[in-house]
């Protein structure tokens, strides 16, 4: 295999993995198939963590059902643009073949997101199902 082919394969590999994930989510909706990983917090305590419903929300988004995605996990849908941006920066570093270091985000920003996630977990478990 030529050097150029290896470089192309390396560049395409993460995109191919993401595309496979999209195909799996569309072909096997998480609400109908049970082979997806289960949330350990929900399994043990029957309490919804901030991430519960993420895969179902992503599957709904991929089908264009935005309202349903928000209902399943509003936090995931809200944070998705940030996550995609962060993944894009990681991918660009990967393409440059530098020694990989995670893009630095401000500690205050990370703690703020963590606080929002914890607040979201509290509210979604309140009686009445706020989220």
């Amino acid at each position, binding site marked *: 295999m030529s050097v150029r082919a290896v470089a192309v394969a390396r560049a395409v590999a993460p995109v191919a993995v993401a595309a496979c994930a999209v195909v799996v989510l569309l072909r096997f909706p998480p609400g109908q198939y*049970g*082979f997806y*990983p289960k949330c350990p917090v929900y399994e043990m305590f029957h309490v919804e963590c901030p*991430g519960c419903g993420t895969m179902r929300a992503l599957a709904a988004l991929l089908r264009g059902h935005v309202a349903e995605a928000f209902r399943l996990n509003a936090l*995931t849908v809200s944070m998705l643009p940030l996550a995609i941006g962060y993944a894009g920066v990681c991918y660009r570093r990967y393409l440059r073949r530098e020694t990989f*270091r*995670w893009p*630095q*985000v401000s500690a205050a920003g*990370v703690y703020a997101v963590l606080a929002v996630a914890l607040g979201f977990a509290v509210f979604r478990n309140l009686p009445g199902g706020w989220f």
Partner: protein
Amino acid sequence: MYYHVTRNGQTYGPYTLEDLQRYVASGNILATDLAKSDEGAEWVQVGQLLGGAFVQGYPAPPAYAAAPGAATENPPNLHWALELLLGIFTCGLFVVVWNLVLAAWAKRIEPMSQALMYYIIATVLIVVNSGSSFGVMIAIAHHQQPHQHVVGGLIGLAAWVVRLIARFVLRDTLEQHYNGPEPLGLRLSAVMTFFFGGIYFQYKLNEINAVKQGIAYRSAI
């Protein structure tokens, strides 16, 4: 915008432009050091980046002291809270993978460490337990609700036991390294190791990175 600074093969940062100006003014960063923005592709001299105001009057950069021993690779720089968030949104899968990354790095700095082996065994057991048993696969293929078999329960228990062993082996490895070849006085709580494992280690490694960065700068000036 954030900038990284490199000197003699070591990269530091990120810093804001204001940080760079302050550090150049204090002499911690030299105008002749190379810097690059997060978005930029090219390294340029810090003085050039700051508009040439600091290029004059600074001596050539001094050489770093040689690292004590070869195995001083910096720890992975992922923020512990980001690891926790990624773990939450991936049902814990990211944490499982990140534990392998940490153990592989520990193996590079302490080649005798067995932590990677235990983490690999634990990961295999987790994967086996989380749905690839024949019964579950057959039930899924026949559109039936899979039921947990007693063997699956035992595998799950074994996965937790091996995972705990891996955590404490990695704890020993880290303490051994950061009180031996790199004497930074690392102490890891057994209780925190038991409950939080890799996330706790990453929190401590974030501190180690910060300390090493400070030491490197002080020794460079």
